[in-house]
């Protein structure tokens, strides 16, 4: 057994059980949507008689204007919304970390040029940028939407990473590592980035929490997930189109969004605390 692989002593930081349970439940329900949803999300049992029904035993979340079961659509919509948020944040994270780490660690002209680029991108509000892209390319595919959200998300991420890298790189233990002959690449990986990851994690969590409403907003505007496929945003769009007479079309996906965002935020905050070695109990 190598010395480094020795088990880390168990942390005593309390876990936010409710948030983790909520998120796991949400992901599980979304992942097994064909089993958990009572109906197919596109099924229209009776377009004439079963449309716009309020919540009942048979349709706990009611039905929409095409008589589709809203619970099933919220469950299938969770798939889309979570996948879009998760993957687009990963894209933003990878790009943002790379650019931010290089800029912050290299300093000088490399830093100046990279950050001017970031400033330029950030000077355009993200929603506006997304609207322009949507206008230019028309209806985006699911992959296209993920890519666009990722590509507009990395500049903010890179700023956070750069600031944290610079702060870490100025610390004495980094100088000490240099004084002992540790090469720059290894210093970045082992002495700088470990202090950056917790911030990145928190930033990523916040990013997930901000991308979910963003995607919902785009879908709500009819620019996100295209119509027959459900997403939390476009379910709400249907509710809006009915001038809120069917409140359940807005309230239930809204609750789904709020629950997810809250749970993700709570978990991110707790992760930050548990990744900070100063909060670990002694060996």
């Amino acid at each position: 057994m190598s010395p480094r692989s020795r088990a880390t002593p168990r942390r005593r930081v309390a876990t936010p059980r409710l948030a983790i349970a909520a998120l796991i439940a949400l992901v599980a329900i979304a992942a097994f949507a064909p089993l958990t949803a009572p109906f197919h999300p596109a099924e229209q049992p009776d377009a004439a008689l079963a449309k716009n029904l309020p919540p009942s035993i048979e349709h706990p979340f009611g039905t929409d204007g095409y008589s589709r079961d809203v619970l099933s659509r919220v469950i299938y919509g969770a798939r889309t919304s979570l996948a879009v948020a998760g993957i687009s944040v990963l894209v933003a994270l990878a790009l943002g970390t790379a650019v931010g780490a290089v800029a912050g660690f290299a300093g000088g002209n490399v830093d100046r040029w990279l950050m001017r680029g970031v400033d330029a991108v950030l000077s355009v509000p993200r929603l506006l940028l997304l609207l322009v892209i949507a206008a230019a390319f028309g209806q985006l595919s699911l992959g296209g939407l993920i890519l666009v959200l990722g590509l507009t998300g990395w500049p903010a991420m890179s700023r956070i990473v750069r600031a944290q890298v610079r702060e870490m790189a100025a610390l004495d233990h980094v100088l000490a590592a240099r004084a002992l002959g540790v090469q720059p690449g290894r210093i970045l990986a082992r002495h700088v980035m470990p202090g950056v990851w917790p911030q990145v994690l928190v930033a990523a969590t916040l990013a997930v929490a901000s991308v979910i409403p963003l995607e919902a907003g785009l879908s709500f505007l009819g620019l996100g997930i295209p119509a027959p496929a459900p997403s939390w945003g476009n379910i709400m769009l249907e509710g809006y189109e009915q001038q809120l007479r069917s409140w359940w079309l807005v309230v239930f996906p809204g609750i789904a969004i709020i629950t997810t965002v809250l749970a993700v935020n709570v978990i991110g905050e707790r992760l930050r605390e548990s990744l900070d070695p100063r909060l670990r109990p002694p060996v």
Partner: protein
Amino acid sequence: MTALLEVRHLSVTYPGDRRAVNDISFDIDAGETVALVGESGCGKSTTAYAVMQLLGPDARVDRNSRAVFDGDNLLTHSREAMCRIRGRRIAMIFQEPAAALNPSMRVGDQVAEVAEVHGERSHRRAFEKAVTMLERVGIRDAGRRAYAFPHELSGGMRQRVVIAMALLLQPALVIADEPTSALDVTVQAQILALIDELRRDAGTAVLFITHDLAVVAESCSRAIVMQGGSIVEQATTERLFAAPKHRHSADLLRAVPRLEVAP
């Protein structure tokens, strides 16, 4: 015999033509302990960092400056060449052991890293070497303590870890930048004794950077006194304390607080 480190005409300038170090020259022989003494801001740390090529990007080392070590001028070495020298041939001990250690790495891994970056391929062997070294610097139960994070150790223990890192590869020269000023008085004496013991065993030369004349008296055979970026006096410790030639040396000696017994 040529000296281990020959510093010649070293000058360092900061932006705005502020001269931090002004044309200084000195030698350090193998196995010798030398003190670089002076008030804070006199350029003693800048001198050491210049020799190690660890100054910030703002600092400019004068072209004519030389710091010859192992027959090469350190000041013109490439970054890669300096990486090979730092930690292996010249190492440093820092003032603030709490800050000099990476808070996210176990101390054993940190000591082992010095061996790893200088050619030890096996982490396991490097770690074993680190544990042995931690024992040698007086850390009891080193096999277990090696898994501790720095914040779990006391200040004196941390400084022992820093010393273990510096001396792991038996460098020819150790630069100790105020190694005891952040420590309790009782721990200070232990740390000085430890550095001296390890120095004797390995034949390492030590350059103490300090403003503390007690450290000079206790540990160093020779002292270089700096003021305002220049060297004002170089003498053996005995001669400096008995009969300081330069007025500034005398001032420094007078500035040492003394315990007076009330009548």
